């Protein structure tokens, strides 16, 4: 039975898993889960992941969630090139360090911009108060500064000379606010240069394919039927407003 990967490319962690699997020639069946349409609440998907989050994989009887865990599992199983998740203890620790930090930094701060700028106005029908938007922008700005200062510094990639899971996870999160119309690269040449290297290392075609959905989300938001998005309302009220 072939590996099943459950994905929605609007989701950052889904993009990193997708890119990783495709880049490394991992044989898998792409199982689409439309988060916008609420497909994660279906009965079948509940069997894959009781918490109903994507990405998730089913490898025979083994089900696994959490993009970081999925990618390190695949790296080991398919013996992907060392640079993705180095065997060297210190390099590996540095990859783990970034993958850990980003959960409470890049991920929420980038994600929030996408929600405040694009999703909430579409679902709730109102713009978000300026102070909330400004605060979110400040958070993201601070995070990007730390990213450049501590994780990039003068290196081509986060851990040394080659791309690793750290860069992959970082780039997909940073692309999320870009999809909402915030060009974070415009005023940050160092970040842009890194983005170019990452895109190159992944392969421009694969990178662009994975990001096509998110980069056209401003357009698709206009044609989104807001009545179908109402299942997000409770979460929005709890989390953002």
């Amino acid at each position: 039975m072939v590996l099943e990967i459950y994905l929605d490319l609007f989701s950052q962690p889904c993009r990193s898993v997708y890119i990783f699997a495709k880049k490394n020639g991992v044989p898998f069946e792409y199982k689409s889960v439309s988060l916008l349409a609420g497909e994660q609440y279906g009965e079948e998907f509940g069997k894959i992941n009781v918490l109903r989050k994507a990405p998730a994989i089913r490898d025979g009887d083994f089900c696994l969630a959490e993009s970081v865990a999925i990618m390190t599992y695949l790296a080991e199983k398919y013996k992907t090139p060392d640079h993705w998740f180095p065997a060297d203890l210190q390099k590996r620790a540095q990859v783990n360090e970034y993958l850990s930090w980003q959960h409470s930094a890049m991920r929420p701060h980038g994600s929030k911009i996408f929600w405040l700028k694009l999703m909430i106005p579409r679902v709730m029908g109102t713009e978000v108060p300026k102070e909330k938007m400004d605060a979110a922008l400040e958070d993201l700005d601070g995070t990007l500064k730390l990213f450049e200062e501590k994780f990039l510094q003068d290196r081509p990639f986060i851990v040394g000379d080659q791309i690793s899971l750290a860069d992959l996870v970082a780039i997909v999160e940073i692309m999320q606010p870009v999809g909402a119309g915030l060009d974070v690269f415009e005023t940050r040449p160092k970040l842009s240069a890194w983005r170019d290297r990452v895109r190159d290392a992944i392969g421009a075609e694969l990178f662009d394919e994975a990001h096509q959905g998110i980069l056209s989300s401003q357009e698709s938001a206009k044609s989104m039927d807001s009545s179908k998005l109402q299942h997000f309302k409770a979460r929005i009220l709890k989390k953002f407003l």
Partner: protein
Amino acid sequence: MSSAPVKAYLDILSQPSRAVLIFLRHNRIPHTVQTVALRRGEQKSAEFTRLNPMQKVPVIEHGGFVLTESDAILKYLATVYDVPEHWYPREPLQRARVDEYTAWHHSNTRPHAARVFFMEVLMPSMLGRPADPAKLQKAVDELEQTMQKLGEMFLKRQAFLCGDDISIADLLAICEIMQPLGGGRDILKNHPNLQSWRSRVQAALGEPFIEAHGILYRLRDKTAARL
């Protein structure tokens, strides 16, 4: 690999700091502790900021190698030192389960438990007045749901979060779950399955667990005395 002792920069009031300290002590890993008192803002000193620009604890330094982030630290220590394998299993499926938890931990157990502690204990201490009751209740409700998910998705019918044996997942989780105790709140009150798990974890960790958490019991008693 360096045979130098590990230098650990910690504040025992910090949940991830406790996890690292307990691991070092329980596994008898040669180490020294440098306290960074968060309440006195010592993490903002020029010296500490040079070590860690994030201005957070825990940090370790091992033969010149500096590492932050508790789960990265625990995984590094478990690999470098000859600790029992159950802490961070080598078998891929078992390891994936631990990695799955340590990822989920960051957006769930950690922030939700920390928020309740922050609102009930730290904020009043800093601002001189209690937290907004509605906001506190919202945080408590969210934590309650997270504990529910912890049981459903991870513990299930197992002895520990990721299998039959204790791992770094349990260590990280328990330190977060203990934190609200500093404000006199037992967040496992409605979760008998997690209470049994907590007892098993405490038993497995032994003396280092008790020592490390002494500060929370003292804080709880101080908080209670103030009311």
